[in-house]
């Protein structure tokens, strides 16, 4: 699985477009990187619709140059099928791009996209998320359309081995009571998912000494603690190299994670639990 962590601190969000006009409404751009997908940023498309090659870009600038592997765009109120392109830059240099079309993500069919780079991109000082006026080949986004974006995520990722017993549980916290007529009286809450799994046997290096390309379970535990977010992507590839975005979209869970205690199995082998509780984007 890919455990995504360590989103860099953001100095600010910007806006650019290949057309003219558009921008954030009401200074709401801080909703893009606050870690709360329900707290949205409101964006206006350019003053002309343009063609399928026209785009508006939401940009994040990082305080330090960081390594990014996974980019997420959550809770977008644009139609499913809209083309988006994630571009990591260092100043004017483009370090890498990945493109996807928006799809309906679980648990509430909120529209979004997960974009995984083939290899981690080091030294990125900014992320540009280009949104094209290309909804399945048609330039159907009108001029001055107002849409909302819940969260823009950019994190580095570490490949971890999971035991085969992981699961993603849907949780519906709505309070349901029965009236005297046995009818449901419901106070609705936003449903979310909870990923729970076990990290399979890790060597001492993998657990403590940076044996996972510089990371280890101990540093990952600290990297996802407190108010930091992470993404658990248990299925992301068929062959361990090529990214399968269908699987990523189906299994990615964004939220607060915990790596549990390291359980000694014998010799220098350990296991641990991993749980991620989702912060869902607003469902439809």
């Amino acid at each position, binding site marked *: 699985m890919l455990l995504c962590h360590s989103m860099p601190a953001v100095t600010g969000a910007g806006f650019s477009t290949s057309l003219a006009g558009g921008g954030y409404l009401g200074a709401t751009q801080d*909703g893009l990187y606050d870690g709360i997908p*329900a707290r949205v940023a409101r964006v206006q498309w350019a003053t002309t619709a343009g063609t399928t090659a026209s785009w508006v870009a939401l940009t994040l600038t990082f305080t330090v140059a960081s390594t990014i592997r996974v980019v997420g765009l959550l809770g977008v109120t644009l139609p499913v099928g809209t083309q988006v392109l994630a571009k990591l830059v260092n100043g004017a240099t483009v370090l890498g791009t990945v493109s996807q079309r928006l799809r309906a993500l679980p648990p509430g069919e909120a529209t979004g996209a997960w974009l995984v780079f083939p290899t981690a991109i080091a030294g990125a000082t900014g992320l540009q998320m280009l949104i094209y006026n290309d909804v399945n080949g048609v330039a159907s986004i009108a001029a001055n359309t107002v849409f909302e974006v819940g969260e823009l995520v950019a994190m580095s990722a570490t490949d971890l081995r999971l035991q085969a017993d992981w699961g993603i549980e849907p949780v519906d916290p709505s309070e349901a009571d029965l*009236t*005297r007529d046995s009818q449901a009286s419901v*106070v609705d809450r936003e449903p979310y998912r909870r990923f729970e799994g076990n990290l399979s046997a890790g060597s001492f290096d993998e657990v403590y000494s940076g044996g996972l390309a510089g990371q280890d379970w101990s540093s990952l535990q600290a990297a996802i603690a407190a108010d930091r977010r992470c993404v658990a992507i248990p299925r992301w590839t068929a062959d361990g190299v090529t990214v399968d975005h269908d699987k990523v979209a189906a299994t990615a869970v964004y939220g607060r994670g915990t790596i549990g205690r390291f359980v000694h199995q014998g010799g220098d082998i350990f296991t641990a639990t991993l749980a991620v509780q989702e912060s869902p984007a607003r469902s439809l």
Partner: protein
Amino acid sequence: MARQYARFDNATIGSGLVATDGGLVITTTLNSTSRSRMARSTFSLDGVGYGAEFVFWGDATSLLASVGLVLAATGLNAEVGVAAGSVGWRLDSGEIRLSGTVVTSGLSPVGKGQIVGVQFVESPGFAYSVRFSVDGTNVAEITLPSKQWHFAVSLASATAGQLSAAVNAGQWPARGAAAAAGWQAALAPVLTQFYADRHWLSATTDNPANTRYEGAIVDEGLEELQRVGFWPWADAVSPRPTGGQVRIHDPDGRLIGLDASQASVLVKTVDRDGTLASATTVSRFMVDTIEVLDDGYVRLRLRDPHDALDEPLNAAVFLPYVPALAWKAQPVVIGACASVPLLAANSDGSVGFLADSALGHVDLVMDRGDPLESGTWSLTSDGQQLFLDSPPLGPVLADVTTIAGSSMTPATLSQTLHRIFSRVGFAAWSKTDTDAIDTATGYAGVGVYIGSEARSARQVRDQVLGWYCASTWQSATGVMRTVRLIAPEAVAAVSELQAAQLDSDLVWAYDQAPNLSRRMGYRPNAQTMGSADFVTDVVDVPMSRRAELMQAFRGVVYSAVALHARYDAADRRDPVPSGFWRREDAQAEIDRVCGLYAVERRFYTWTGRLTTGLPAIGDVVTVYYPAYGMDAGRKLLVVALQPNRATGRVMIRFWGA
């Protein structure tokens, strides 16, 4: 935060003047007719609306006084208006000077006892103007630049101590517009903060547009309580009919430093995809207290927003130029009052004050209980004082009313509440409700007297409403509504509630009516007489009349309607007080209330979830329930509501048979 009114101060006063009585009064201390000295306010202001009033008195033959505004840098041993950086009006010569130059002249001379007003007013093209007025009539306006101005008074008298001035910076009721806003220290404005129980942005078409409502209201939402109480019940008229509480996630501490006394709360409900313009206002509050629960959470306790009702109704005082009554609170008369005491103002008691506002009619004046013959007394032109031809022995009591006419006309409920609320500047109340009560009852009305004890508008309002067996609640927009206790089975229901909507069982309890009484006292004596206060003549003042004047009420009525056996104790309880003037009104009212208890009454508690169709207090609702004989519905009166606006859960308390 307590209000701060400006006053004079001995630290900022010219030589030859002294400030006394807490800085409210200044007096001359030198034998000099030179006005080159001034006393100025403790703090300065700069803005439209602020103002103050002044009054002058003393034995000096001429009113050598100047009133106006000065800058802080102006020296104190100069005259207001003559010194640079000041504008002043010489009251005896009718000239207004701006930094020494006469800019207006020919104004009528002002006399002692007249009230001079100084106020900042709007002036197109300029920062503002200062408006001078006398007894509420404007006399001149002078444009001024925007600076921090103090008000100031210069006095002089040939003999020391013979001229004094007092200032009303809003602490007393204003005579005119000048002191209406007063000269008060500006309170720090509160920054508007937006919260919701889900993260929400207002629409692009709203005003304010694209505003973020932080989703920091914790799950249990906003709990509100609204209730009314009536005098037969254990909990009588509730002083604060509305309250609420809400818990907010506030890790940044944005709410902790809030000045709660200035923070008002407006609560609306809206669809997730809706606009602010289409949102429904559900309640208005003021923040009562902010509790810090822990590092992350704060609880706001909310109360009804009618702060003006806590102002004292009898704020006016007698100034020292009536030495017998100096600093005593002026009595308040509203409607028809019996046995109002005459406050003697001069040495032999032949002139006295009755009320702080003009009376419409004085019916009877009694000296030691013996009525004075007509022609031997008269009401002054200001309608507040009596002249008696001969000095009385005292106590002198009078039957008076504020309603103009040739007989004792009491004030209806609407008239009484209007007078109470206009005294404290409270306007958010529904006159339609009180007019409806006046029409439905047809009572002539009531009277209220307040002597020296401090009574707030809220206390007097609750007292008057209690006489009509009425209570108040607050509508969604913060307007004070009035409702009477009525028999719900006798009126049409406005809505219904089905058993299917209940979350738990309907529970009821008997209304024990612990304060119900068959007797009602009417026409209260503003001041009761003692047995030694009467004349010895028992023909002019017979024993029955003496008893009337010695009791708390002139009369008591008894209701003979049949009561349910549960309420037998009503026979043995003390009379319930009322302010009705006419005996028939009191009789009709006590008959009406006792008539409600001819059947056994109960309180019902209904708990459910209502997203629409929440009844209001005072509504009569048909409630269906498969028990207690309520299969076919029973009409009940809503007397308390405890809704949770976020979850839709509500607890409704009903009253009925």
